[in-house]
Each structure stands twice: as C-alpha cells, then as structure tokens.
C-alpha cells in the first residue's frame, strides 16, 4: 500500500497520467508581463553555483533558479510540492521513497534528465571528495556511513530501477526527507558536465532550472538568461537577470533611488533603515516578511554557574527583549522560544519568560548567587551585534551578573562556541536560519546531543537524551496524514527545552526587501521563506 501527499493525489486526479498535464502545478500569474531584465546587487562575491557546495546568502537563491530538485515549494510559501518528480510514494514503514520523474525535462546542455542523474547527484553530494557542506543532511539514506567513510562506490540505498523512477531506501524513518529532496544540496546535475569542468563546475553550472548562466565576469557580474525549455510553462517571466557584485548596501540603496538597481540583494542597510521607512514613497516599496531565524543567547550548561537551571531562568527573565528590538530599529519581533513564528510546530499560546529583573534577582539569590558573578559574553564583531551585546550586558548587570564582552570575528566566535570555551554567546550574525522549513532543523545541530560534541553548533552544550529520543520518535512519523501529531510532538520538545533553558531566545528577525517601482509579482515572492532573498523565477517587471 502506498500513500500520496494530499496535494499530489489531487493533482494526479485532476491531471491524469498524461505527461503534458503533469506540469500544471502552477497557474501563471494573469497580471504578469513576459520579458524584460532586472538588476540585483550583492556586496560579497558569489563563491560558486555548484548546488553541492554553495551555502551563502547570495548563491542560495541563484542555485535554486539554475537547478531543480525532486521536490519543490509552492512559490512564496513553505508548502512542499513535486518538482522534478511528478509524483512519489512512501512505503508503509516510511523507509522507502519511490519518485516518478517528470518526463521530457532537459538539462541546459540539451540532454534529457533521467533517474541515473538523480542517483549520480546524491552520490556526488555525499562523496567525501566533494567536500559538500550539505552531506550531513542525507544521513538517513541507507549506505550513508559507508559512503561518507569512502568505503563505498555510492549510496547503496539510492537506485534507478528504470530511467523514470528513483527509489531511495532509508536506514531509519525521517519525516523531513521530502524537504531534503527540495534542498539545494540534493539538486540534480548532469555527470558529463561535472566531469568536463571538474572543480570548476561551480563556475560553469548546467542544470534543469528556469535560468541558465550566460555570463560570469569574476568579481563583477553574473548574467542569468531565461531557459526557454523550462518544464514549467510560462516560467520564468524575465528574459534576463544581472547580478552586480561588490556593491556596498549603502551604495546599492543610492543606486536604487537613482533607478539603476531593482533589488538590493543585501537589503536595506541598518543605518538607512529609519530614513527609508519614514519616507512613504520608499516605504511602500518595502516588503516585510517573517524569516525562519531566531537570535538567542546560549549558556554553557556544562560549566558553573550555568549548570544551574535557576541561573539560566534568571538570565531569561533579565533580558529586556523589547529594548533590543528597538536597538535594531524594530527589524525583529521579540522571541520566547527557539522556533520562529512562521515555522510549523511553533507554540502559539506559550508566553515564555516575562521580563522581570526583580524576580530574576530573587532567583539568582535562591541559586546561591545573591552577589552575582562574573562571566563572559562572546559576540560577533560586526554591527549591530556589539550594540546588542552591550544591552544584554546592562540587563545582566542590573541583576548582578558582570559579563565582559568578547567581540571577535565570526570564525573565532564559532570556534569558541564549538570548543565549549564560551560561557555565553550572542548568536547574532551567525544565528540559526533554517535550511528547510521543518522544526527538526532547529533541534539536532543546535540543541541536540550530536551538536554538543566538540566543534558542533550546539554552543550551550545542552544534551538531553530523553529529548533526543522524543525527537527521533517524532521524525519516525513520515506519514503526511499524521503531520499534525508530529508537529505537536515537536512543540512539546521545544517547550521542554524552554524549561531547561539552555538559551535565552531574544528575537526573530524580520526580512525587509526593497524593490524598484517597476517590479511586479506577489509580495510573498520577495520575502520567500525558502528562496532567500528573492524567488527569481516568479517575479516580473511591469514596464
């Protein structure tokens, strides 16, 4: 017996088995105008467009436009939909996924994509030689351990029974698996292009996506050109996108005001934020949306005094989150739990620890620290993080905690966090932004026992084996029909985390994307939770 996602079942019922109709997952925007080109700026260089390697703010969304995965998201939302697979089945035990590929999909080099390409791509991303930062996501696939150890010729669990079918066997159920098939790291690449360009494939990308790379002048400019053979009819709308690299955000904003730029990819610079938002003509061109991000203070639970839960509760009560949100000009909302509000599994009716310095002081006294103590707060050294750390420092001083600020380069803070030498860390600038919209992505690396190992991202070194077991149990529910039950289990897990309080959650950043007056398309495309920062495939120009 097999099960289909409700949306897929509905789709198949409507479309029938004929392949021409299989792409009708998207209704073109009736207001959209075809053609035209836009200019987008970024400050930092684009390192690579190889989907197995790219993991930056700039290239994440670009890679999504050049390549595709078996799964995809409804534009502007966190809802999964089939991508290169037109349908799929999950076995009863949740261990076998069978994907049926969309027929007639072609790579930019003209060759038709087959199931062998999918197998090759998954083997490639998990091959230790590839050194992919995303290899770890695929740990549930059968044969992963042998593959990552370099002892296998590929993932034994991934097979291609016929050119249109891919079968993936898991060694343990993983409810997030469909999300992983929509993650950049699983995108499908053609073997011949990878072999031709070798390590330079990232500069000569060949995919199946809506755009293909037309020009790349190192350090200056990338030009994307519409893929006329794209498998979703009518998409993309734009003929061309030019990405100009090396542009300071302040300069990009000035150029937007001059009409030379359509979207500053790095957003509105903090120093200009109030100026822009207080000018109605500019503010109306700013789209605001949630972000799958949480900024938090970690407390190392393996070291005194933070091994005492009362002390951690006191810190949670001492921090004035509203004031910190003011410091960053209201570009965030106060947080009371690890998950951001737009993440499935967020606990709506939870109130968290209210701001209560007196109560916090009493709690500290009860824990045996009536006179407070000295500690260190690590923070990344770029604005606004040191200012936020100073506000936290003042809040802590008010209850007697004397925290000295260690402002360091990002890599150094990450190093101290991983090594467990930092008593407290403000996560800003390195904060967790979800790789995919599922509550599990906020747990294992940053709150689970695996992440608490030396060098891991769980900087509080919090390890609650009971919660790890509950998490594994929740993620064994891969039946989409029981998704609500699974999300409730995750909500319970995060509530238990808040009781233990290894973190003080501070805020969830909001995204503000500014666009030129001629940009069209639904607002949620400009704050797409998955295609960060903008979903290039579905936006258009009105003139």
């Amino acid at each position, binding site marked *: 017996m097999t099960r289909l996602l409700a949306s897929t079942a509905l789709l198949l019922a409507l479309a029938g088995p004929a392949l021409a109709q299989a792409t009708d997952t998207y209704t073109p925007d009736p207001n959209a105008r075809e053609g035209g080109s836009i200019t987008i700026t970024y400050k930092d260089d684009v390192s690579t467009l190889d989907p197995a390697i790219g993991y930056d703010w700039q290239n994440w969304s670009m890679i999504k436009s050049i390549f595709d995965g078996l799964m995809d998201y409804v534009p502007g939302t966190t809802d999964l939909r089939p991508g290169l697979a037109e349908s799929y089945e999950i076995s009863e035990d949740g261990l076998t996924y069978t994907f049926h590929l969309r027929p007639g999909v072609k790579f930019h080099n003209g060759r038709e994509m087959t199931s062998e390409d999918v197998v090759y791509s998954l083997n490639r991303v998990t091959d*230790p030689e590839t050194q992919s930062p*995303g290899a770890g996501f695929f740990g549930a696939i059968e044969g992963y351990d042998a593959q990552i150890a370099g002892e296998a010729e590929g993932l034994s669990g991934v097979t291609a029974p016929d050119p249109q079918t891919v079968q993936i066997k898991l060694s343990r159920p993983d409810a997030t698996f469909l999300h992983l098939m929509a993650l950049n790291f699983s995108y499908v690449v053609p073997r011949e292009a990878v072999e031709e360009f070798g390590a*330079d494939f*990232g500069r000569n990308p060949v995919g199946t996506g809506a755009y293909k790379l037309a020009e790349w002048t190192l*350090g200056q400019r990338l030009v994307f050109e519409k893929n006329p053979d794209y498998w979703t009819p009518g998409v993309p709308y734009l003929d061309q996108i030019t990405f100009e690299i090396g542009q*300071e955000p302040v300069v990009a904003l000035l150029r937007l005001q001059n009409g030379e730029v359509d979207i500053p990819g790095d957003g509105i610079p903090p120093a200009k934020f109030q100026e822009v938002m207080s000018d109605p003509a500019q503010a109306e061109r700013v789209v605001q949306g949630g972000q799958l991000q949480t900024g938090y203070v970690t407390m190392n639970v393996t070291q005194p005094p933070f091994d005492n839960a009362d002390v951690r509760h006191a810190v949670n009560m001492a921090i004035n989150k509203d004031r910190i949100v003011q410091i960053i000009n209201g570009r965030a909302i106060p947080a009371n739990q690890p998950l951001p509000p737009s993440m499935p599994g967020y606990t709506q009716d939870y109130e968290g620890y209210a701001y209560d310095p007196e109560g916090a002081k009493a709690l500290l006294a009860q824990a045996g620290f009536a006179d407070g103590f000295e500690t260190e707060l690590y923070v990344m050294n770029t604005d606004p993080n040191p200012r936020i750390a100073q506000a936290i420092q003042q809040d802590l001083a008010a209850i007697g905690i004397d925290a000295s600020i260690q402002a360091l380069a990002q*890599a150094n803070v990450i190093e101290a966090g991983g090594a467990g030498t930092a008593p407290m860390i403000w996560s800003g600038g390195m904060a967790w932004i979800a790789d995919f919209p599922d509550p599990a992505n906020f747990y294992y690396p940053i709150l689970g026992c695996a992440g608490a190992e030396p060098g891991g991202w769980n900087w509080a070194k919090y390890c609650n084996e009971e919660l790890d077991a509950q998490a594994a149990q929740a993620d064994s529910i891969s039946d989409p029909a029981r998704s609500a039950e699974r999300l409730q289990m995750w909500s319970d897990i995060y509530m238990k985390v808040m009781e233990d309080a290894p973190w003080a959650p501070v805020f969830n950043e909001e995204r503000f994307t500014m666009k030129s007056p001629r940009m069209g398309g639904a607002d949620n495309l400009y704050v797409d939770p998955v295609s960060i920062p903008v979903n290039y495939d579905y936006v258009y120009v009105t003139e």
Partner: protein
Amino acid sequence: MAGYLLRRLVQSVLILLGVTLVTFFLLYVLPADPVRQIAGRSATAETVESIRRQLGLDQPFWVQYGRYLWNLLHLDLGRSYLQRSEVAELIRARLPPTLLLMAGAILCELVLGLTMGIVAALRPGTATDNGLMIASFVGVSAPQFVVGLLLLYLFGVRLHWLPISGYGTFAHLVLPSLTLGILGAGWYSRMMRSSMVEVLRQDFIRTARAKGLTRRRVILRHALPNAILPIVAMIGIDIGVFMGGIVVVESVFGWPGIGQLAWQAIQRVDIPIIMGVTIVSAVAIVLGNLLADLVAPFIDPRIRLR
C-alpha cells in the same frame, strides 16, 4: 651594477620567504578553523576530519608550510577552500582592475600633489601656502572610507556627474582613483613644497635668475627637475601604501580588484586566497622598491648604487 642587482634580488627573495613564513604562521595559529567553514553546520565530526585530512590541515606546521612552498616554487597557489577555483586564476582576473586603479591614483597624487606643492612653495608664508598645506594635512589624515563616501555622495548622488559605483569606463575610475590618491597627494604636496623651497634657495637658481631667464623658465627648467627627485623615488614605495588602501577603496566603490578579494577571503578564513594575495602584494612592494632604487641614479647622477 650587476653585483648590486644580484644582491638586491637575493634580498628580495629572502624578504618574500619571510613574508610567506610569517603570514602562514599567523594563519596557522589563528583561533578559527577553516575546515568548519567548508564543512558547514550539518557536518559530522568524521566529515570534518575527512576534509581536514584531504586538505592536509591535519599535518604539523612545517609539513604544511613546506608543501605550500614546494607548490609555490611550481607557481601553484592552490585552490580556494570555498570557491574551489584556482587562486592564481582568481587573482589574475582581479589584477587588471587593481593595476588600473593604482595607475589612476598615482596620476591623481602626482597632478594634485605636485601642483599644490609648487604653488605653495612659490608663495611661502602667504594665505595660499597656508591654505594648501592645511588641505594637504586634511588629505593625509582623512580616513579613506570617509573620503570615499563623501566624494561618492557629492559627485555621484548630489551632482550626478559620475557613476556611484562599478567598473568599466573612464568615469568609473575617477572617484576611486581620487580617493586612493588623496593621501599620497597630501604627502607629495608637503614634500614638493619643502624640496622646492630648498632648491629655490640654491646658488644655481640665483645664477639662472642672474642670467635673466624668465621666472617661468627658471622654475620649470631649473628648479622643478631638481626638486622632483625625492618624489620620483617615492612612487615605487607608494605601491606598498596602496596595497592597504585598495582594500577599503575597492569595497566602497565596488571595484573588482584584489583588495575586495582579500577582504572577502579574510572574513571567511579562505587561507589559500589570503596567502595568494599577500604574496602578490609582497612581490609588488618589493619590485616597486627595487624599481625606485634602480631609477634613482638615472634621474640624479649624484646617486650611485653600491
């Protein structure tokens, strides 16, 4: 001359060797792990160790450094950890814009600095002299980041005379060159002024005047060629000063040169790029100094190379 050249070349090689050793050592002891940057947040400890092994970063310092030198001898700067491209190619692509920017800056500092210095020297102690020297003092002290943004705001945003940022046309070159050259222009005007004042007091100038030459001829044919000598020797040394400035100026103006490449690599601990840019800069500085020394005797026969 040949002996001198040989000695200087040996010296230069030793200096470059020292630069690679110090830089490599500093990056080695840096409390930041490049492997973590490559491996990403989802990596297991085994993946991290496997990448460390592949890159040879698990080896002792001397082994790593020896291997780097060996590759360097074969003109191999390695591949970027994060971009995975050849460092030599990344630098090659970005070198022409940087050289262009430097040429523009040298032109700016010479034209501005020499003119200001000469004008001030001809009217010593006057309001013009004082005004120009204050201006040069401001040029020397103003942070390039601020100068760049001010120029950009005035000429790009307010007056629309020049493009705000970018690369490709002569107009794009003006503001970054000016920003980079203002510091040198400040120095040069002060040096030119004192050198010129000094020369104008010499006997041969008095003789020239006594011969009845015009003031213009005295200054341009007799005073200037002598006063300019110390400045020419400075241009080679400027290259070193520019190497620091380009990081800032290229960032402000979105200039696609090696300064921008270096800055981005430093932020992400991309060691092969940091090493590559350092070596290229060091070579440029050493060559610049060598050139300055070699050129000096041709301009001023009193100088002899020994």
